[in-house]
Every structure is written in structure tokens, then in C-alpha cells.
């Protein structure tokens, strides 16, 4: 039973940073801007969030600082790609590397330090339920927020005028421009939202999930986010499903190792990646469907005067 609570309850927390960053990346990509710098933005968010939280003692300030710096970095990407028409892939990579370096500089004095993690907030009554209570209703506040972010992102993208505008720009920025939509402003806002969410995801890693700062602690999770949006075919539900699947298989493989079953541990370490890719590829195997959902202008240089 403990194992079950560990895996199910742990998955929600393990996927939280991925959910934040992936929802942000999804919105940016829906508007047609590929941001490959997520890893760097998460790292800067983690460093900044940790430093501000340790100095101020406030989790709120920590998350805000992480979000703020993630946003600033993503705006560099927005400026390069939208104003100076740089290649989105090259710019994203460059900004990501800049972010990794920046995180190291910001966190220098705090290397290897710890803070108390974000406390858990039990939901009254519900958290008392045996088994289910500790699994779902004894989490920290950001876990609940990340769960709420999923339907919110879906609603905005699919049921509001703003969402329609974002998707229209992602399909054809030229046509949207001809209709009088402010393509650059909206795209930049979507990228900024993505950067802020990546910053929050990073800060979640350093002040809530693994409450410590160590350079390189994001350890590739930003790249998983980029992969999730693509394998989830830019659909909110599938991207979220992918994040939870990845989180649960990561914890499952550690539990299987801890059980002492004699399965090669290299295979177990690769399992989260394999299962997530296979599952998402299977549910998204219809090529027509992928083409319908992928933003047509994704990655293309903006052709507006």
C-alpha cells in the first residue's frame, strides 16, 4: 500500500514542474513560436526562485521571481525571432544556453544549500479518506495549481476568442496580420507566458520538489517538456497525460528497483522515456489528426514587414 501511495501521490508532485512548463510551451507553440530554451529557463527560474526564497523566506516571492526571470529570458527569444527574424531553433538553443549559464551565476553563492520545502496543504475532509486522501489531497499548493492549469489552458485555447486568435496566428500569421491582428504582440505574449511557466516549473523543482539548489539540477527535464508537446500533438489533454505518465513510470521504475527484482537497471532507467514515447505515439498515430493539430507556422520565420 505504501508503494501505491508513493507512486500515485508522488506522480502528482513529480509531474508538477513538467505540467507548468509544458502548458506554457504549448501556448507558445500554438502561436507558432518554438521555444527550445525551456531547459535554460527552468534552470534560471530554479536558481532565481531559490535565491529569492532563501533570502526573503517567502515562497510566493520565490515563485514570482522565478516566473519573472523566465519571462525576461523568453522575451529575449521573442525579440530575436519576432523583431530580428532569427531562426527559432537557433535562437531558442542560444537563449537556453544563456539561461543555463545565468542560472550558474545566480546560484553561485547558494550552491549545495537547502531550504525547507513548500509545506503540504491537506484539503479538509478529503485528506482524511484512507489511501485516496494521502494520494491526492495531501499535496502542496502548487500541485493543485498545476492541476487547475490544465483545464484552464484547454478552455482558453479552445473556447475563448483569445484562444482562437492564438491558434489563428499559429496557423497563418500572414493571414492573421491581414485581418488586423497584432501578430507580434500576441506571439510575444504567448512566449512570455511560456517563459514564466517554465520559470515557475523550475522554481517548483528548487523550492518545493527537491528543495535545494545545485547547478544542473533540472537535468534534462526542460527537454522532456519540449518532447511532450510534440508527442502530445499539441493537445492539452495528451500533453498532460504524457507528463503524468512520465512521472509515474519514473517512480515505478525506482520502486521496481527497490523491490530487488532482477531487471537490468539501465533498462529501468530508460523505461519512462520509452513508455511515454510509445504511448503518445500510439494514441497520436493518425497523421491527418497530427497535421490538423500542429500549428502550421511552427518554427517558420515571420514574413511580415
Amino acid at each position, binding site marked *: 500500500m505504501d508503494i501505491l501511495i*508513493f507512486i500515485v501521490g508522488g506522480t502528482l508532485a513529480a509531474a508538477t514542474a513538467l505540467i507548468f512548463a509544458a502548458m506554457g510551451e504549448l501556448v507558445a507553440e500554438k502561436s507558432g513560436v518554438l521555444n527550445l530554451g525551456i531547459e535554460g529557463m527552468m534552470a534560471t527560474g530554479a536558481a532565481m526562485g531559490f535565491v529569492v526564497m532563501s533570502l526573503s523566506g517567502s515562497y510566493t516571492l520565490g515563485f514570482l521571481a522565478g516566473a519573472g526571470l523566465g519571462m525576461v529570458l523568453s522575451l529575449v527569444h521573442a525579440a530575436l525571432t519576432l523583431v530580428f527574424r532569427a531562426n527559432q531553433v537557433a535562437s531558442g538553443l542560444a537563449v537556453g544556453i544563456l539561461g543555463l549559464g545565468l542560472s550558474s551565476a545566480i546560484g553561485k553563492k547558494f550552491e549545495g544549500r537547502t531550504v525547507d520545502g513548500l509545506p503540504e496543504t491537506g484539503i479538509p475532509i478529503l485528506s482524511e479518506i484512507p489511501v485516496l486522501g494521502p494520494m491526492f489531497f495531501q499535496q502542496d499548493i502548487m500541485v493543485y495549481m498545476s492541476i487547475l492549469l490544465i483545464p484552464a489552458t484547454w478552455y482558453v485555447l479552445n473556447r475563448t476568442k483569445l484562444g482562437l486568435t492564438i491558434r489563428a496566428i499559429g496557423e497563418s500569421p500572414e493571414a492573421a496580420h491581414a485581418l488586423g491582428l497584432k501578430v507580434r504582440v500576441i506571439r510575444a505574449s504567448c512566449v512570455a507566458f511560456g517563459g514564466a511557466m517554465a520559470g515557475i516549473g523550475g522554481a517548483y523543482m528548487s523550492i518545493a520538489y527537491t528543495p535545494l539548489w545545485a547547478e544542473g539540477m533540472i537535468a534534462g527535464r526542460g527537454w522532456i517538456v519540449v518532447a511532450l508537446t510534440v508527442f502530445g500533438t499539441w493537445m492539452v489533454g495528451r500533453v498532460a497525460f504524457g507528463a503524468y505518465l512520465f512521472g509515474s513510470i519514473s517512480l515505478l521504475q525506482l520502486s521496481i*528497483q527497490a523491490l530487488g527484482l532482477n531487471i537490468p537497471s539501465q533498462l529501468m532507467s530508460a523505461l519512462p522515456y520509452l513508455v511515454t514515447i510509445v504511448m503518445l505515439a500510439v494514441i497520436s498515430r493518425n497523421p491527418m489528426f497530427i497535421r490538423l493539430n500542429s500549428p502550421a507556422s511552427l518554427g517558420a520565420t515571420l514574413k511580415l514587414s
Partner: protein
Amino acid sequence: MLPKTLKLTAAAATAAALALPSAAQELTIGFVYPSPIADVGWSAELDAGRLAVEEHFGDRVRTIFVENVPEGPDAARIMNQMAAQGAGMIMLGSFGYMNDGMRLAEQRPDLTFIHASGYLLASNFGNFQSRNYETSYLVGMAAADVTETDTIGIVAAYAIPEVVGMINGFALGVQEVNPDATIKVVWLNSWFDPPLAQESARALMAQESDVIYSLYQDTPSVVSVAEEEGVWVINTSSDMKEYAPTWLLASQVADWSTHFIDSVQASLDGTFEGTAFWGGYADDTVDVESWSESISPETMAMIEEAEAAMRAGSFHPLTGPIEDQDGMTRLAEGEVITDEAMLGIDWLVSGVETRIPQ
């Protein structure tokens, strides 16, 4: 890597400025560290050795250091720069600096090098390692003493011989005190992933491990989660008492001071020989710090006895009879493992449940 490179260049420039030869100093020693010098961890431990050298020799030597140096061209450039600026001795703090260091050692026979881990040797290029399996044996005894579930979990990075040797030493220590205890290992297959290390510790706790042995996790990831959950924890490579004031059972540490001071003395005297230094208790290189008060006096007495025997060189943790996981006899009654076999060890003793990744 723009910012990192800039930072490195800046650091190297500072190092270079510091290294200007001065009449009072007989020797400038350069230290190259693979990670930032934090409060704890591998680089911090090496840097403690540097400070000991400074204190011992005073004005006779000057030390310079560059931290967070990636293996590869950056490392080669930093060590070349140190050599060009008059360093007479260089300490290389990571396995991956070996080939670049050796190349420089061949070009500059007037310099001396000491290199952490690694296997290449030359007359002016020595390497150093610590016999951590000795302290692993002692902390294993302590783990067996405090466990109530008879289940002990290990979080380990990769199955390299050093780590395998430490797990064996640990398991033998556990079995000395509590032959019924179960030992489980989670292999991370990653050198650095603090969140994954923490998840692994939680996975082990969810399956009743009430002592966690954190093997070469350079950050306090495992130690702090153990303190939070109220589970005993043992740390490797530096003392992390401040991160787990209640639940830290012990910390295995290595002290490079003696070896560094000896090597510097040899360089000053012109008697440096490139040797493979493998220091244990007998060489004052390894020790255990911050023993918990909760260890029973009987076990503590056994630990002290074993420690004294290792200091005297009369006891090796891997002394037969020892069987491996398949029940094959690896060491016969009374047989002591050779250093050569220990350096290439690729089997786990019986009693460890998890297999080595093949």
C-alpha cells in the same frame, strides 16, 4: 556555453594574475576542480586539502585554483595557463582531466602532477584515491544496529568498481552486526540528478528501508529528504550533519591533507615520484565523522575495534569466506582480496538483493 566560458576565462585570468612568481615562494600549486566549491561535496573536500597545504607550508608555497572546470578543452587550457604562469605543481580533481594532464606532464617534465582517480602514471604524474570501502564497513555496522525493519536501502550512481567495492564493504559491515538484514540498491544510472536521487530515497522508504545509504550524491538531496521523513541516513564524501541534525547516522569522509602535503613536500625536495596512492585508515586518508548518539555502545565498541584494526593494517573488510550473489565462493576462509582485484571488482556479496547492472 558563452557565460560559462566567460566566467572561466575571468577565473583563469585571476588565477594567472595571482600566479606571478614572487621571490618568497618556492612553489606555486594549481588546483583544478570539476564542480563549484560548495559548502559540502567533492570539490569542497579537495579544497580543504588545498587549505591544509597553505597552512602547513605558509609563505613557502602559493596556491591558485579554478573551480567548475568542464572536462575537455577548457580543462586543458586552464592547466596549460597555470603551467605557463609558473605553477610548479598541479592537482587535477577529476578523472576526465587525465589525458590532458598527462599530455602536459610529458611536455613539461619540470612540473609535477597529482590526479584524482584515474590510472595513468608517469615519473612526474601520480594519482590518488581513497579506500572508502573501509569506512563503508564501519557505517554498515552502524546501519545494522539502528535498523528496526531489517531493511537498508542504498542510492548509488553507477556500478563502477569503487562504488561496488563500497557496497560490498557496507554489506559485510551490516552482516557482521545483523546477518538477517536485507540490502537493496537503486541504481540511478546518472552522476548528477538531485531530484531523481531524492525520488529513489523515497522509493526505498516506501518499501520499509529505515536506513538510507547515500552513495556519492554530491548534493544534500538524499540527506535532507531523510531528515524530513525521519529515516536514518549515511552520507559519503563530506559531512552533512547540518542538513540532517537528527537523522544523520554518520558521514564517510576523505581527508586529502596528508597526501597533498606529502606530495608538495616531495615536489619541493625534488623527490616526487609518480605513484598510485590509495589511502585508507592506515594513511589517515579516510574517516567517519558525526557518529550518531543513537548507535548502541556495544556496536560502537565493535566499530572502534574494527577501525583500530584497519589503522594498524591488520584487518581488511573483504576477508574470506565471502560468497557472491550467485553463491560462488569468491574468497576462501581467511583469504584477503588483493588490491588488484579490489580495483576491478564487479560482483556483489551475497545478502545484497539487487544485481549489478551488466
